[in-house]
């Protein structure tokens, strides 16, 4: 018997069950297909405008900085301003994401923008978030051909653009969008939920930012709100 | 069970109060009678069985439990001046017997009518205030079983607040274990000592004149430690203060 069969057999023996039991199979298939949501904290169950405000507040609580701009057209300037204010060079690396590519980069002549994954020598990276969760100020980023995961972790400064419409109240709302996005197929290789910049408390329980990942997380929220948004769970 | 004006209470005296501090028993008697209860103390009680239970000896525990059930079954309520012993009867006795047996049903019935003294006064009899005086600053330790198994936290504080002249100075970490733990304090004496030493530091920091709690195990542990350390407030069972019976020496103190 293979190790697999041995283990499954041992589990069934302990449970006093057998795999063919149709009631058990049905219960499992049902849960996997319906993915019931359980308890959703009230704090995120507010109008979309308030969800965006909550998202910003929660992100700041975990030491991210947050900027708000009216439209995607304003993003390159906001980035240039941020870099200047932080005394950082006007240079960043980003993925080929079409919404990032469509930004009016030519408005910032001094800003040097390269594209592709990071090999570890970039100071600043820019990514686009697939979603945001107001409940805890969490960004959700998907990996893909135009969205390298290395950009989320190797650079010291991580700038993330998120459209206000993509901010939801709770994680479950993002999972439902993700299911639509993948049309029920396989998830992207990496889904990063990011809540603030990297940190460690491993030395004397003193929390320090920038353990292995970015020391700074800067979020640019585009647009403020639209009634409804994509913030409802179903 | 009809709750008449004068419920019949069986006082579970507890082995520690019986041997070391009978005044706690008399304080409990007074409090219960003042609250309108008829109280009896069955002779056929020794201990709740916790020493055996926590040592993994289920057989002896069950035998002792049967004895307690026999002795206390006739009463409207079982009341113990200890969260630990009351918790043993109220939360663990039913687990000692196979479900669906008569013994299990009897254990459950007894469990349902068993209470710790202060909780009984505050929550069952609805005593709101006591007509006693105690002109001292006290601090209160939340004994673990009472706190976490029976939810005793506000009741003693509420009743203490009604005692004339009494001031409560809360200690840091009043909900942290004192390190007694029954046989633990003897089997792992040095760990227990470390824990109680931390506890007595917090007690002294309050500047209180009296340390109170609802369980003699914890009280003897903390009193014994502070006496060994040579400093700290006097130590009493909360029932003594609530009953206004504080004339005698505190725990481990010399007569007169």
């Amino acid at each position, binding site marked *: 018997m293979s190790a697999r069969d041995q283990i499954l057999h041992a589990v069934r023996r302990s449970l006093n069950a057998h795999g063919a039991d149709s009631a058990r199979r049905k219960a499992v298939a049902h849960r996997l297909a319906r993915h019931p949501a359980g308890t959703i904290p009230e704090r995120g169950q507010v109008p979309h405008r308030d969800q965006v405000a909550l998202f910003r507040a929660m992100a700041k609580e975990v030491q991210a900085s947050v900027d708000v701009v009216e439209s995607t057209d304003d993003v390159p300037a906001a980035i240039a301003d941020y870099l200047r204010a932080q005394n950082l060079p006007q240079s960043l690396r980003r993925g080929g994401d079409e919404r990032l590519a469509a930004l009016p980069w030519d408005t910032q002549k001094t800003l040097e923008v390269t594209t592709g994954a990071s090999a570890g020598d970039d100071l600043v990276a820019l990514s686009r978030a697939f979603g945001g969760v107001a409940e805890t100020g969490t960004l959700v980023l998907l990996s893909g051909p135009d969205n390298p995961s290395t950009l989320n972790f190797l650079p010291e400064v991580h700038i993330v653009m998120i459209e206000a419409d993509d901010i939801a109240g709770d994680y479950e709302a993002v999972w439902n969008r993700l299911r639509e996005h993948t049309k029920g197929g396989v998830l992207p290789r990496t889904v990063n939920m990011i809540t603030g910049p990297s940190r460690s408390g491993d030395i004397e329980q003193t929390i320090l930012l920038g353990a292995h990942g970015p020391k700074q997380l800067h979020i640019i929220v585009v647009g403020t709100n639209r009634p409804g948004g994509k913030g409802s769970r179903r | 069970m009809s709750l008449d004006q004068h419920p019949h209470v069986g006082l579970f005296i507890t082995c520690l109060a019986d041997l*070391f501090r009978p005044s706690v028993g008399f304080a409990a008697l007074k409090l219960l009678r003042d609250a309108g209860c008829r109280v009896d103390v069955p002779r056929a009680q020794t201990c709740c069985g916790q020493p055996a239970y926590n040592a993994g000896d289920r057989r002896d525990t069950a035998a002792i439990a049967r004895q307690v059930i026999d002795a206390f079954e006739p009463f409207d309520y079982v009341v113990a001046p200890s969260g630990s012993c009351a918790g043993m009867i109220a939360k663990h006795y039913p687990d000692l017997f196979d479900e669906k047996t008569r013994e299990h049903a009897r254990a459950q019935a007894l469990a349902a009518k068993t209470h710790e003294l202060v909780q009984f006064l505050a929550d069952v009899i609805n005593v709101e205030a006591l007509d006693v005086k105690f002109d001292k600053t006290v601090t209160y330790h939340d004994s673990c079983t009472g706190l976490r198994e029976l939810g005793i936290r506000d009741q003693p504080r509420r009743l203490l607040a009604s005692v004339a002249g009494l001031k409560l100075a809360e200690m840091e970490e009043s909900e942290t*274990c004192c390190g007694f733990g029954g046989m633990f304090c003897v089997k792992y004496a040095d760990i227990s000592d470390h824990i109680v030493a931390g506890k007595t530091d917090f007690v002294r920091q309050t500047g209180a004149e009296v340390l109170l709690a609802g369980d003699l195990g914890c009280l003897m542990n903390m009193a014994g430690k502070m006496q060994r350390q040579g400093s700290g407030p006097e130590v009493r069972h909360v029932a003594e203060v609530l009953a206004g019976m504080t004339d005698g020496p505190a725990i481990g103190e010399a007569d007169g």
Partner: protein
Amino acid sequence: MEIRSPDFAKNSSRALHDAQLQRALGNVKLGFIAKRRKAIDKLPEFERLRDEARAIKEHTLKHLDLYLEAYEKKVLEAGGHVHWAADARDARRIILDICREADAKTVTKGKSMIAEEVALNPHLEQAGIDVVETDLGEYIIQLRNEPPSHIIAPAVHLNKEQVEADFRRCHTGLPDGRDLDEPVQLLGEARAVLRQKYLDADVGITGANFLVAETGSSIIVTNEGNGDLTQILPKVHIVIASLEKITPTLEDASQILRVLARSATGQEFSVYTTLSTGPKRPGDPDGPGDYHVVLLDNGRSAMLGTPFEDMLRCIRCGACMNHCPVYHSVGGHAYGWVYGGPMGAVLTPTLIGIDKAGHLPNASTFCGRCEAVCPMRIPLPKMMRHWREREFERHLTPVVQRAGLGAWAFFARRPRLYHALTSMSAAVLRAMAGRKGRLARLALARGWTRFRDLPAPQGRTFQAQWQSGKRA
């Protein structure tokens, strides 16, 4: 890892007298308890989420075989591999084989208690592979050749001066005069040293907080980002996880995630929660080319259907340790194996045997605080008592204790004799104490009187006074 659990008493004695350790343990109390309280107070739904989390795990365990099959199917669909390991030896062999296949010279590792459980590092090192722990705490203890002392804060037993000394000893080639007084400087140095390791690594090994059956994803939860760099840079990602990490859906994982970080570090959410599904896809510019999951049983299947099944709900948050007075006193190493504190006191005997781990479930005051804070509502004291019962049944309880207990029970079951004995004891103790009201030494209670005075009985027993008609 060498088993030192039988020496718990000796280990704990040493720990109590270790001034460095005692100073470090102070941080556990300060760091974790208040932060957890604060996070929970901010979430009114917390208690309901605990119930949900427990129900999810109970449901999952009852259907574990089916969820394992569903999970495996999804991993395969995503292009990953699933390996089943019945025990630690299997897991080590499987992982070494994958590393050899990848021609691995350097392996980076995210923090994994399961890897500790199967003693993975020594096995890979013996095969000539350079294994680098990347979680800062794990990295520090790796330099010291020590096991973790806490399941989420492996180096919580250390002070910064000790870390500084280790860095100076191990990070050769850096200027001797460099300033390492502050934690931030230590962190900066570790970051720089480890950065190169991430880039050099051929294989990255992580644990998993969840294995999601719905999607075939493994989820890790970290604050540093080390687990991410460990898995996206090397060409192979290996996940090692025990069976009970299975969680049905993303929604189910979300319910449990809501209680995990709050219980563990008092954060509302950890910084990085990462779902990994299979290897990188065609066109992906980064990510591992191969993705392997090693599913470890190592005794879990045998816990199902027993009184210890509840322990399989454990999500390794460490709240039980953070609130345990015994853990606060002696730290994690005293427990003598991988898992310490209350969860270790229950789990370790199932993994190394109660004959070796007998002290662990006994070294508890049963204060119940572990159960009170456990997000998964695991009745830890109850299960420690189960172990004590098994020891008693198997006559593993120490002879002296057993004899004493037997004598006591003999009297406790005979009220008449008992009252005679207590009356006599009251008189004797009272006489010995004289007018002092307490005893400083008592041969029969040495464990007590070594550290404390014993209050003497007030006089006659309550029962004797009651019987002779004295009334309040």
